[in-house]
């Protein structure tokens, strides 16, 4: 890379390009003199690269802006091109709804204004464009309020610019900026408060926040900006290098910035039905998602004491680095720890990363990315960061009973993976007390599930050794994991006839019998004599045993003998029996059970509906609140079904993209052929219709081939569309079955709605009245007022006197409702497609209000 590029890239960093200097002014001067030399012959390269740097290293924007300001003094034309280029890019970003790009380019424009490259009035015009689009969107008559997410985003963009140039704007165009602020305030008064319902990390927040004065993201940002304004627009987190060059910069020519336009929102009649409004709102929120939800897990005494606006700016920096340096480990960690701010921010950094890892409905990247970032930061800041991470884990563990179910699952996966990268070292003795809690206490379940995942990533003895400082926790380790073969010949168990059958089958497999041979053996000598149940048991157990050695052994046996299984289990009833056999065989190894079920679904030996039925069998329902096993299987099933759909959608869209060019090619070839055929040529002195035969036949061939190609694409498109239609039907059936099952089990177990209409009421139903029997829902006394208040205050947390104070049945309901919400939220986009049917078949009037609430919450649907 040429040296000016390195200088641009590394500006502001501690790097060898800039020697020992860490002064921004030095960096800018060094970089500027290098660029000035190159400008004449590599103007285009510089422009392109500079724009890339701006868009991907937004925390350095003030430095780049000042550089452009200095270049403006030398070469006005270059600066003009920077402005024009930025305008084009911004317009593209607005048109395509590229949120990060819009926000960052607006910030760049602000900084260009500070460096006198851009006229301040032009920036105000851009603000006003966004403002007026936002105001129109939320207008009931002229706009479409279901797209408020987009409007809120535009306003966020305006406010986000102010830390970078508020001071300059107020100085240069005080009246105009005041007008913008008044406009924002007016907007805030007509928009609706954006509720976090269904997306908050902690369950109690969902209830507490409702209607109370809690600020949403935009309201919060607005108050931070007002705070900044009251503080004379001074803040620590934004470097202002242009001030060092002010004397020079004032003489630069300020360029104009052409108008930008916001894409028009689909105008819709004000009579949007509830469902359509919900669907559109969901779509808008997907396209313009809220970037961050603050986690606030550290006590104020621990976290850095920052000004509200500084906290916002550092979050912006961190989120941008996380976004742009996904996949570049070294740079990501280096930029995260080297932000251009004069204060420490480890706690804020940890909180921000955890808030992304746990972000609902989903984080911008796979959760594993954040695992990697945390690992790298622990290595980059070995003295500071590991302790902060441990503090975050402790804080989350304390509140785990209120943590959203989806977040709990992510936390378990993250924590086990994190520990596996640090030799499984953790002060487990701190948590040894969970053994004294009932088996459904969320803290205990959390420890148990973390240990389970650790064992999967490592091995049993190793994990056992890692909890040596709290030896009691060994009790929470999963069983040691061997198979549980019904027809094992190892022990002293009596050998039955079934043992003999199993041995026969095993020998046939060893003797490489084909699936057909085994089927006829079964049809002739097993099924007629022993009946279905024995046949199914013997065949399944034996196959599972042969495939038990590894994942690959399992696949091999399923590929070879899947037909046999399909023959025995052609319908849902038998498939449920089949899954039960898998559960029996792998009762000591949840991972293998889950994998076997997953593969069988992959080979279409079992349907997703059969799996749902099995998950809701009595044996599994019992574990809903004490184990992740049934949920893991259910998650796999739904995600596999969903993956099939999304794969097909991708294939269809790529085929559709291919169809136009092939069509054109076919038409063109045909036209050429016809033109050639129409020509008159002389053959043997006689005029004949058609060009010379060689060329003609070549053209004919080409036209045929092009046509064939077009037809073949159309055919595969049709085939894929048919497959998609089938997959969508399957998905609809799956979700209906899932919700019906949820509704049934919950209705059976939830206390009457008059006593438990809200989650906190459910939590405060007396603990001990329940622990006796899961099946008995009656005979529960209503608490007296006093007790209830006491309990709802502790909200399910640990209390010193009586361990965990939520009863088994209530916990069962809480956990299950938590999963209802989690599934609804994760697949909301699909579920909205079937919402009408769901309303008719499941969410009927007499459905329990807590169940309805969980579904609505997950879908972010408003309850009328």
């Amino acid at each position: 890379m040429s040296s000016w590029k390195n200088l641009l890239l590394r500006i502001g960093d501690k790097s060898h390009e800039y020697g020992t200097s860490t002064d921004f002014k030095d960096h800018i001067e060094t970089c500027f003199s290098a660029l000035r030399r190159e400008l004449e012959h590599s103007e285009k390269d510089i422009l392109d690269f500079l724009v890339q740097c701006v868009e991907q290293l937004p925390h350095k924007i003030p430095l780049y802006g000042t550089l452009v300001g200095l270049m403006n003094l030398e070469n006005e034309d270059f600066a003009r091109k920077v402005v024009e280029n930025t305008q084009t890019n911004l317009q593209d970003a607005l048109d395509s709804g590229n949120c990060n790009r819009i926000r960052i380019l607006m910030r760049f424009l602000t900084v260009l204004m500070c460096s006198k490259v851009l006229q301040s009035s032009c920036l105000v015009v851009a603000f006003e464009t966004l403002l007026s689009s936002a105001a129109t969107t939320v207008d009931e008559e002229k706009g479409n309020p279901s797209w408020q997410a987009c409007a809120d985003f535009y306003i966020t963009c305006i406010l986000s610019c102010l830390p970078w140039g508020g001071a300059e704007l107020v100085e240069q165009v005080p009246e105009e900026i005041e007008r913008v602020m008044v406009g924002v305030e007016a907007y805030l008064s007509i928009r609706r408060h954006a509720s976090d319902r269904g997306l908050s990390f902690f369950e109690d927040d969902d209830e507490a926040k409702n209607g109370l004065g809690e600020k949403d993201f935009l309201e919060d940002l607005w108050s931070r900006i007002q705070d900044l304004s009251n503080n004379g627009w001074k803040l620590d987190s934004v470097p202002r290098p242009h001030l060092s060059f002010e004397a020079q910069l004032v003489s630069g020519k300020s360029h104009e910035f052409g108008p930008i336009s916001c894409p028009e929102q689909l105008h819709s009649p004000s009579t949007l039905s509830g469902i359509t409004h919900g669907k559109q709102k969901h779509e808008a929120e997907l396209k313009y998602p809220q970037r961050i939800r603050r986690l606030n897990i550290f006590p104020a005494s621990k976290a850095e004491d920052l000004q509200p606006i500084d906290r916002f700016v550092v979050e912006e920096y961190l989120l941008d680095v996380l976004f742009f340096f996904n996949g570049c480990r070294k740079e990501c960690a280096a930029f995260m720890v080297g932000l251009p701010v004069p204060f420490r921010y480890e706690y804020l950094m940890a909180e921000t990363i955890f808030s992304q890892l746990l972000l609902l409905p989903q984080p911008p990247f796979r959760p594993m990315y954040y695992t990697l970032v945390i690992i790298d930061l622990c290595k980059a800041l070995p003295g500071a960061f590991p302790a902060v991470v441990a503090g975050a884990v402790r804080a989350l563990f304390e509140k785990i009973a209120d943590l959203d179910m989806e977040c709990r699952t992510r936390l378990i996966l993250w924590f086990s993976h994190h520990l596996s990268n640090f030799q499984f070292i953790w002060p487990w003795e701190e948590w040894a007390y969970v053994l004294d809690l009932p088996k459904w206490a969320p803290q205990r379940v959390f420890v148990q599930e973390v240990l389970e995942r650790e064992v999967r990533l490592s091995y049993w003895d190793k994990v056992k050794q890692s909890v040596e400082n709290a030896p009691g926790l060994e009790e929470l380790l999963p069983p040691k994991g061997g198979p549980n073969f019904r027809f094992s010949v190892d022990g002293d168990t009596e050998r039955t006839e079934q043992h003999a059958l199993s041995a026969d089958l095993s020998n046939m497999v060893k003797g490489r019998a084909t699936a057909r041979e085994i089927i006829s053996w079964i049809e002739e000598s097993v099924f007629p004599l022993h009946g279905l149940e024995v046949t199914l048991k013997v065949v399944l157990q034996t196959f599972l045993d042969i495939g038990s050695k590894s994942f690959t052994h399992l696949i091999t046996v399923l590929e070879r003998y899947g037909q046999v299984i399909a023959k025995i289990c052609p319908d849902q009833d038998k498939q449920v029996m089949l899954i039960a056999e898998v559960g029996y065989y792998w009762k000591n190894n949840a991972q293998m059970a889950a994998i076997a079920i997953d593969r069988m679904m992959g080979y279409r030996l079992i349907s997703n509906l059969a799996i749902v039925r099995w998950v809701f069998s009595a044996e599994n329902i019992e574990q809903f609140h004490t184990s992740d096993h049934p949920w893991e299987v259910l998650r796999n099933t739904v995600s596999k079904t969903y993956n099939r759909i999304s794969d097909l959608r991708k294939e269809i869209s790529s085929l559709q993209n291919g169809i136009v060019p092939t069509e054109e090619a076919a038409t063109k070839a045909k036209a050429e052929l016809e033109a050639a055929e129409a020509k008159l040529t002389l053959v043997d002195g006689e005029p004949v219709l058609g060009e010379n035969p060689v060329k003609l036949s070549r053209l004919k061939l080409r036209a045929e081939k092009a046509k064939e190609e077009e037809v073949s694409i159309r055919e595969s498109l049709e085939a894929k569309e048919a497959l998609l239609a089938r997959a969508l039907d399957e998905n609809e059936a799956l979700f209906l079955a899932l919700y019906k099952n949820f509704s049934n089990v919950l209705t059976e177990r939830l206390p009457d709605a008059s006593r438990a209409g809200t989650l906190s009421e459910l939590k405060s139903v007396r603990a001990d009245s329940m622990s006796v029997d899961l099946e008995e829902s009656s005979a529960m006394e209503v608490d007296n007022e006093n007790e209830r208040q006491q309990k709802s205050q502790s909200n399910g947390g640990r209390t010193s006197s009586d361990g965990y104070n939520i009863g088994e049945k209530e916990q069962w309901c809480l956990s299950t409702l938590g999963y209802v919400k989690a599934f609804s939220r994760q697949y909301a986009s699909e579920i909205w497609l079937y919402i009408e049917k769901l309303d008719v078949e499941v969410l009927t009037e007499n459905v329990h209000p807590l169940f309805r609430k969980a579904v609505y919450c997950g879908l972010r649907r408003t309850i009328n």
Partner: protein
Amino acid sequence: MASLFKDPSKLSAYRDRRFLGSQEDFEHALQTSITVYVGNMSFYTTEEQVYELFSRAGEIKKIIMGLDKNTKTPCGFCFVLYYSRDDAEDAVKYISGTILDDRPIRVDFDWGFQEGRQWGRGRSGGQVRDEYRTDYDPARGGYGKLVQRELEAQRQLVDYGGGSLGSFPPVMPPQYGRHGRSHGHGGSYRRDYQRKRHRDDDGHGHETSKRTSDHESRRISDHDSRPEKNPRFRESGDSDDDEEDDRKQRS
């Protein structure tokens, strides 16, 4: 992803000598591949451990353990096949360089599994890197094969008597039992890789090759004859940038 620091077209610094085709073909294969190569694994890491870790990047289609061509036991590498390219990319991005079974593993795009590639290419049956290593790496069979042969020769000269190869560790590592776990791979399986398979047509009942054999007895005895029985210890001194010799450096 940022394009500033990473050349997105440069997918792997390695060029497999066994790849028949031009450099462009090779690059195209890497760019579209749904297979990743995993290197620097412990010989004792199981498919299930790989599954747990790699399924966090996406749904896994297959895992193929790399095996020593003589002993048919794992020799420290594997291939993981995904259903989708995005998932394979995430595996490379997020898993490479992290720890599996106490070792920093390497994850790279692979040009696609073909029958035969599961075997180690070293003279002694394992990976080439395990021929020439001079360090003592108990999770990969102790010393490198060459050193082991030298040690053996010396021992025969002085006649120290029996004792298995490579069991000359500088320090005896603590042994944490891992009973009933270290069997598990090996054997030869029929794998139908050429056929592109989709999630929804994992059809069953393919004809299987005649090579699916009684690998179990062999595997167990193989294991018993291995130099290092249970070499678990906390820190492996292995570094991440160890040469993977199967894949020759391009330049």
